[in-house]
């Protein structure tokens, strides 16, 4: 079977050992886990495992550099990135591989994780399958294209024929694709404009959709992502000004179709999913709003 390389960028993450252990236990196919210890050592150290590679940097270089570094040493035909506080369904790897074309990004169904008890947390809300990209012109905090959970699309597409289904965007805490797509089409994660951290799903998601690829949600398997409740300290973070700069750059970049080598314009993506929450009927005539 084809190998999967799981990339876990980590910066002071208390649930990293649990995440690594969980993935190694739940995978059923050939797998390697690459944990990036970005400028810190966990205490205690991660438990050794034949399938675990640790990439430690004396100085933190940020999330995007961590992903790129791990992807550079990854040996898998497939790569999956996940945050250092995630739990997976048994056999997630084989289910994700089964429906992943060369130019796809696949996102497993997302549940909420109670990390302290390492179990799924029931908060009385449905699992998350779909995200939309928000309209920068109607965004209150500035010209920023934010992702949002899209429950309406979920309720209208419950039929099993939608088990593998198009999604406009995703959260970014876990994604799965071929190494070929990551290297040859996305050319890795770009720090230009975005900075080291923000707008990860916008970058790789838009590059994928607009280059002729596809993002799908896969409802046949799942992962659970740390449900924000109690604080567990800060992992990767940036100050508000840096984030705002990255968000604004990205918003303008995509609304003005500045990404080179794309097959479609952003308009194509919005129309494909129309009607999309937060996008007004007259959005095309308002693209230049708030641009300056």
């Amino acid at each position: 079977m084809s190998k999967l390389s799981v990339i876990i960028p980590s910066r002071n993450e208390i649930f990293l050992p649990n995440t690594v252990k969980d993935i190694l236990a739940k995978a059923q196919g050939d797998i390697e886990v690459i944990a990036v210890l970005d400028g810190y050592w966990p205490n205690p150290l991660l438990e050794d495992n034949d399938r675990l590679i640790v990439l430690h940097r004396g100085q933190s270089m940020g999330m995007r550099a961590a992903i790129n570094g791990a992807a550079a040493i990854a040996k898998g035909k497939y790569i999956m990135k996940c945050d250092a506080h995630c739990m997976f369904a048994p056999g997630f790897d084989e289910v994700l591989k089964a429906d992943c074309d060369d130019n796809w990004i696949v996102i497993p169904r997302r549940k909420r994780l109670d990390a302290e008890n390492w179990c799924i947390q029931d908060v009385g809300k449905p699992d998350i399958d779909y995200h939309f990209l928000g309209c920068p012109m109607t965004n209150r905090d500035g010209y920023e294209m934010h992702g949002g959970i899209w429950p309406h699309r979920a309720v209208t597409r419950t039929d099993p024929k939608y088990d593998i289904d198009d999604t406009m965007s995703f959260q970014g805490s876990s994604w799965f694709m071929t190494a070929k797509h990551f290297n040859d089409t996305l050319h890795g994660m770009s720090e230009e404009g975005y900075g080291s951290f923000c707008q990860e799903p916008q970058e790789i998601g838009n590059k994928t959709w607009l280059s002729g690829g596809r993002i799908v949600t896969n409802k046949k398997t799942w992962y659970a992502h740390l449900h924000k409740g109690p604080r567990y300290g800060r992992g990767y973070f940036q100050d508000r000004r840096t984030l705002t700069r990255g968000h604004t750059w990205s918003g303008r970049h995509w609304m003005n179709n500045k990404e080179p080598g794309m097959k479609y314009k952003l308009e194509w993506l919005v129309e494909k999913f129309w009607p999309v929450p937060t996008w007004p009927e007259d959005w095309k005539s308002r693209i230049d709003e708030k641009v300056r």
Partner: protein
Amino acid sequence: MPTVSVIVPARNEVFLQKTIEDMLAKAQGDIEVIVILDGYWPIPQLKDDDRLVIIHRGQGMGMRAGINGAAAIARGKFLMKCDAHCMFGKGYDVKLAAECKKNWVVVPRRYALDPEKWELIDNPKYPIDYMYLSKDLHGVVWGEKNKDPKLKKKLLDETMSNQGSVWFMQKSYFHELELMDEATYGTFWNEFQEVGFKCWLSGGRVMVNKKTWYAHWHKTSDFGRGYSLSGSNQPKAQAAVKKWRKKGWRKQTLPLPWLVERFWPVPSWPEDRSKWTS
């Protein structure tokens, strides 16, 4: 951004920490040191440094895979591979980078290191600048050339072969030479045969830079083996080296006799040219 990325593959290496500290202290330019802990953790842990990157593999993968992994994340324009028991001359990084054309493999002058005292051993065999490839394609210290007073004055010169414990080149050249080829050579053996043959016989130059030096562990005492030799497939490497008598690599443009002729007369090679490729 670092200019030089130093790659240190390590497997149960007693002098790794000293090697790292030495390289960080002696560098005068911007460097990063990428250490591959191949299936083990040193005790005590390596000391943290902003310029140190560690790749730890739960399972040892061998020397070639280690070098390749490190090269894949290296950010420098130049790569330097170095064994985990070496001491360096001050400013080695800057001096090596200053004279390294895009199709050169450069090695510094080599001394003998007493790793316990961390000092040079006074041994009449050293310094070693030149090595030759013997008729059976092994690297051998070229005593006569190393002692030649005229050659001593030549601070940058061609060398037919090298030990392989330290080599330096542009990262783009590392990829052009398709280093390190684990599928053909196996995990460990004949590292410098692969590097040297590919370089010389596709139009490059292996150079010794005597303006700087390193000292390599002179085996006086036994500290155990680093990279395990079992399963490292020496016959495979030997078969791959042997192929250079005819054609060793798809990018090869020059035949082996060209190299022998260039350094002629070379010890162990017969006058009768017709016997060179057999």
